[in-house]
């Protein structure tokens, strides 16, 4: 990617983020419910209500509220959560690492599994097992993360209770972390007991998020590989006596990977969206789980902060995808 097109993309990303901010702000100011009404005790006087309204800046006009809000956001001040009575930025900073670790682990799992199955299926394309793989994958494509998560709850939480059903870490060992990146920190500080505990808590949510993505990657990559395998250069390499495994891994994969990466990028944003419900099911303390509580409690400052964080994540994923696609496909450089 050239410097100019990179600048261009970054500029577009910034504009998109501002657009998200404006939409979020406007939408949430037309919310019918009064957030103040939910905070006051039944005997509060009118003066108390007004004071509270002023405290949260809800008494000014809309453009003024937006100007105040956007200026504060740019300075890193996301306001105070109405339901949790805490600084929104610190709440986000506390919860975001949990979601990032979960989404990243699910992505790695999905790519490894999807790639593996696609390559193996291509190697044994003529075997009798090939239609079985296709049918199974077709079935898997229809199962969304929500259903996976609950099926896993039944399977590994109740029927064979091998994995913890909820949370991110056993409370007994949660002390002594300096960052919120529990997985990475326990890995780098070589605390294997903690690493195991965190991993066990993550297995089911990672499976629920990763399996749908894995079946999509399998489908697309398998198709791209099948198309690549009938090209002339593959035939040439085969005539030269290259082994089938090397043929697929070295020649076909290189040419089939581009479209798969582009699609994986788009699907990864859906996976991040899926963390909302999957975190809820496993009581995993990430920003997705927090988003549902924020909506239930009509916690406007928190919702705004969360939507901006999600928006920024999606934009970053899209940028990274573009960069990767360009990296793997030199023809795009022009």
């Amino acid at each position, binding site marked *: 990617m050239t410097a100019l097109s990179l600048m261009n993309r970054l500029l577009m990303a910034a504009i998109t983020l501002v657009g998200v901010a404006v939409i979020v702000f406007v939408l949430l100011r037309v919310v*019918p419910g009064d957030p103040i009404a939910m905070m006051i005790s039944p005997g509060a006087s009118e003066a108390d209500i007004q004071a509270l309204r002023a405290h949260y800046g809800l008494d000014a006009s809309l453009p003024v509220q937006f100007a105040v809000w956007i200026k504060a956001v740019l300075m890193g001040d996301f306001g105070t959560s109405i339901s949790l009575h805490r600084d929104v930025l610190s709440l986000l900073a506390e919860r975001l690492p949990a979601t990032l670790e979960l989404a990243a682990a699910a992505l790695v799992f999905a790519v490894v599994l999807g790639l593996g199955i696609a390559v193996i299926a291509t190697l044994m394309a003529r075997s009798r097992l090939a239609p079985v793989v296709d049918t199974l994958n077709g079935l898997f494509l229809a199962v969304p993360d929500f259903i996976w998560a609950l099926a896993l709850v039944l399977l590994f939480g109740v029927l064979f209770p091998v994995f913890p059903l909820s949370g991110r870490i056993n409370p007994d060992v949660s002390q002594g972390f300096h960052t919120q990146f529990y997985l990475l920190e326990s890995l780098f500080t070589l605390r294997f007991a903690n690493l195991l505990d965190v991993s066990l808590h993550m297995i089911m949510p990672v499976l629920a998020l990763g399996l749908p993505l894995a079946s999509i990657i399998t489908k697309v990559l398998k198709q791209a590989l099948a198309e690549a395998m009938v090209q002339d250069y593959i035939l040439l390499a085969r005539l030269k006596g290259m082994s089938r495994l090397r043929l697929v891994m070295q020649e076909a994969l290189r040419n089939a990977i581009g479209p798969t990466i582009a699609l994986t990028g788009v699907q990864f944003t859906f996976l991040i969206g*899926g963390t*909302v*419900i999957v975190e809820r099911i496993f009581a995993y303390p990430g920003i997705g789980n927090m988003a549902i509580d924020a909506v239930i409690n009509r916690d406007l400052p928190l919702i705004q902060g969360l939507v901006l964080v999600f928006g920024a994540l999606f934009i970053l994923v899209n940028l990274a995808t573009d960069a990767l696609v360009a990296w793997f496909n030199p023809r795009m450089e022009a």
Partner: protein
Amino acid sequence: MSEIATSAPRAAAKQKGHRTVMGAILTDPKVIIAGGFILLLVILAIFAPYIAPKDPLEQDLMLGTLPPVNGSGYEPGYYLGTDDLGRDVLSRLIYGTRIALTVAFVAAGLAALFGTVLGLIAGWYGGWPDAVISRLVEIWMAFPPVLLSILLVAVLGSGVHSVIAAIVIIDWTRFCRVIRAETMGQAKLDYVTAARTMGYPKLRILIREILPNVAPVLVALISLEMGIAVIVEAILSFVGLSVSSDTPTWGGMIAQGRQIIYQGWWVLTFPLIALFATVLAFNQLGDGLRRALDPVLQR
């Protein structure tokens, strides 16, 4: 005269292929099983009061968390057991089809209506209407569905109307994009040229000639969208943002079952199976219809 104009794919299908199209639909086991299952759900939803063995709302704490048939402590008549409040799981499951199917049909229908109208206009008239609609779709799709649904439910409040509105507002673009492309493809075909040569008004050609020919794709899309709608409703019921908690919904039952998972696995399991089967049925039906109705895929 109009025979010439309608000697289009549709007319061709009528003459030699109509029976085979119907035949293809009716001999595809996927379509029959999936369609039969959905028909069963529709019957359950309509006649729920006559079919359900118990009142889905009747609580009896003396009968709380009873296991299904064959479990120890099974109470005759409560075939799939009871939840922690002593409500009959089977009856709640049957009544739950009502919300699931209402959302599926209304949300998918409305999303299809808006998306198709805009897609037809954009694909047929081109020019500035196409430019406006296409930009709108692009902007819409840049907004991730989850963000949009969080925001919409926050703005609209909870309830089944909000769920339907959210699905329509988010998913009309799916229809618009596909129908626009289909319409543009059809507009290039000879039968449309013939109809134009005959001097038919543009709107008439769009509605009488092109619309019937994009209908197969539309039907398949609607079926897929219904599957999506059922899942979205279940998720929002699960987190308590759909209908009020005393109306039986599969998502609500699943949420309750998740809380008492160690006391009664059946409260979660049965609605989950119902949800999965329904989503799979809509998926397979859409897939089968698309294959059966698409002349290119059929060959």
